[in-house]
Structure formats: structure tokens, C-alpha cells
């Protein structure tokens, strides 16, 4: 497993009781409760949950060998009364060498993509990671993503902790 280093936010996610990290987002009993709940995460065939965060519909597009890169899409629902942050994403280095959280923006008809440090998941809100928007980018795929293939992905949330999900490769 190899995680992308993305600064203080992620370090906070790793050390769950890092006081600075908690101060970054929210200082409250509820937040602490969410962190504690995050210690017991579960994963199912397509999604997973930790604390108040539930990740579903985890899909990757199949890729041509020459492409070398891939994208994973999913839905994150936050049932807490406080927001959370997605701060890290990782897959096994048998899948891709590097994993980053990316955002595709459309401005004046031009699409451009850039890495982001975190994505806000609003309180009682849902965020779609979908084509043309946010996605997890798999850089330097070890082998092309073939339809039907599944692989594990870990998503790190500042409050809820780590959610392990199974991504499924689909044609479209």
C-alpha cells in the first residue's frame, strides 16, 4: 500500500487524535464520536462505511493499455451533523503506483484537471465523485483496468477514519 502525501490534513487523518488536525475542521464531542466510530470500518462488495460516512457505487472505467492512468468514481454520504473531509486515497501498488484525489473543472468549454488536497463532504450531505468532476486518479496503472476486475481502495476521512471499498471496473 502506498498513500499519497498531501500535507497536514492527511497526517491528521493518520494520527486520529492529533489535536491540531481536529482543530482544523471541528472541535466537538460529535467529531470525537465520529473518530471513535471510524475505528470499526466495514466493507462490502461495492461500498463501505466508517462512522457517519458511507461510500457506495464504487466504479472505475475500463482502460486501454496505452492510457496508463485510470479514474475511480463513487458516492460519499455523510449522515453526521458536522462536515467531514476526504483527505486521502490509496490502492495497492499492484494496481497503480500513485493515487491522487483530482478535480476536473470545465471553464469556457475547456476541461482541466488538477490534484486537490481534500474534498469537503457537507453535514447530512452527499458528494458524487463522477466523470467530469471529482475522482480518484490512478497514476501509472500496473496493468490495464479490465471489465469485471475488482480491487480494494482505501479512502481516508478526517473525522470518520479510513473506509475500505471494493472498486469494480465497468465498460461505461
Amino acid at each position, binding site marked *: 500500500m502506498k498513500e499519497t502525501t498531501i500535507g497536514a490534513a492527511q497526517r491528521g487523518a493518520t494520527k486520529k487524535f492529533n489535536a491540531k488536525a481536529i482543530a482544523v475542521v471541528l472541535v466537538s464531542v460529535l467529531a470525537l464520536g465520529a473518530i471513535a466510530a471510524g475505528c470499526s470500518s466495514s466493507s462490502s462488495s461495492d461500498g463501505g462505511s466508517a462512522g457517519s460516512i458511507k461510500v457506495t457505487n464504487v466504479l472505475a472505467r475500463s482502460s*486501454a493499455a*496505452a*492510457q496508463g492512468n485510470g479514474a475511480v468514481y463513487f458516492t460519499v454520504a455523510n449522515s453526521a451533523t458536522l462536515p467531514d473531509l476526504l483527505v486521502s486515497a490509496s490502492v495497492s501498488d499492484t494496481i497503480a503506483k500513485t493515487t491522487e484525489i*483530482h478535480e476536473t473543472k470545465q471553464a469556457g468549454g475547456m476541461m482541466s*484537471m488538477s490534484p486537490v488536497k481534500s474534498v469537503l463532504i457537507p453535514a447530512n450531505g452527499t458528494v458524487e465523485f463522477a466523470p*467530469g468532476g471529482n475522482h480518484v486518479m490512478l497514476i501509472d496503472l500496473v496493468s490495464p483496468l479490465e471489465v469485471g476486475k475488482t480491487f480494494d481502495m482505501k479512502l481516508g476521512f478526517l473525522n470518520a477514519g479510513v473506509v475500505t471499498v471494493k472498486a469494480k471496473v465497468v465498460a461505461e
Partner: protein
Amino acid sequence: MPDSEGNVQGYAPTPVRTVGKLSLPNVETGANGAAAPFTAPPGGLLVVYFGFVSCPDVCPVSMGDLAAGLKEMGPAADKVEVAFVSVDIERDTPEMLNQYLSYYFGEGNYRALRANDAYQLNGVTYEFGAQWNVEAHEPGDRTYVVSHTGVTFVVNDKGQLVWAYPWGTSAPDIAATLNELLAKQQS
């Protein structure tokens, strides 16, 4: 053209732009490919997309949806050719372009267009009204960011740019659009 909900997917650029006089090397048969003009075969259409091979999000989705749309058209799709124009000539080799396009459209069912330099590429994108940008980077850096137009263009057999549909157009809408444009062309 309206989709199932009655929304128009795309537009006909006006005044009519003629792009048939433009051409780029088709590297489908190797690095020193012959110049291929932006004109559809007689009675057919040429679908033109500006992208790059290592694009993880926008291009694969656009190519996947186009391939699915062509499949949905059935035999009528034989009249439609796909041209993929690389906007990342530094990283996209002819081999990579061919592997990539064969994956989506089958061997030989595409034009892999790769300009010799940025100047030549600009000459084409200017006429199409397509934009692209390669992030400034040190020589040898392979991680630079490429931005590009998300629009897909359709050219007729007179070399006229007859339609442009936006990013996110679904496969059924692509099929309906191309069928309608084909019918117009034959009438």
C-alpha cells in the same frame, strides 16, 4: 438535436466553418503517416475529438460513450469515421495512439492524428474553435497537466463543421445526433 427529454445536445456552428482544407498526419500506419484531411468519406461523417492518451477522466468517458453510440447505430455507423487529434504530442507516440484507439473503435476504424509541432496543431484547433493547453514544464518532466476542449465535433463530406456536442452527451444521444446528421447529408 433534442434528446429523450427534449434537451438540445449540441449546436451547429454558424457561420458554417469549412475545415476540409486542413489536414494532419495520420499515424495509424506509423510515425510518418500521410496527411489526412478533415473531410468525411462520401455520404458519411467524421467525428473529431481533441484529447490525449493519458487523460484519465474526460477522454476515456468521451471515447467510451462515442464507441457505445456508434455500436447503437448498427450498420449506419459504417458511414461514420472517428478522428482523434492528440493535443499532447510530446507524450502521445503513434504506438500509444494506435493502441488506445484500437481499444475503443477496433483496429483500423479510426484516424490517429498527431501534428508534427504545436504550430501545426494550433492551425487546426483555431479553425475548429477548440482550445488546448499543455502546462509549462521542465524538459523530461512527464507529469505535466493538459487541458482541452470537452466538445466533440462532427464534419460532413464537404469538409464542413456541421455539429458540435458537449461533454457528457450520452451514447443514445450521440447515436440519435449522428443518425440525424447522416439523414440530412443524404437528402
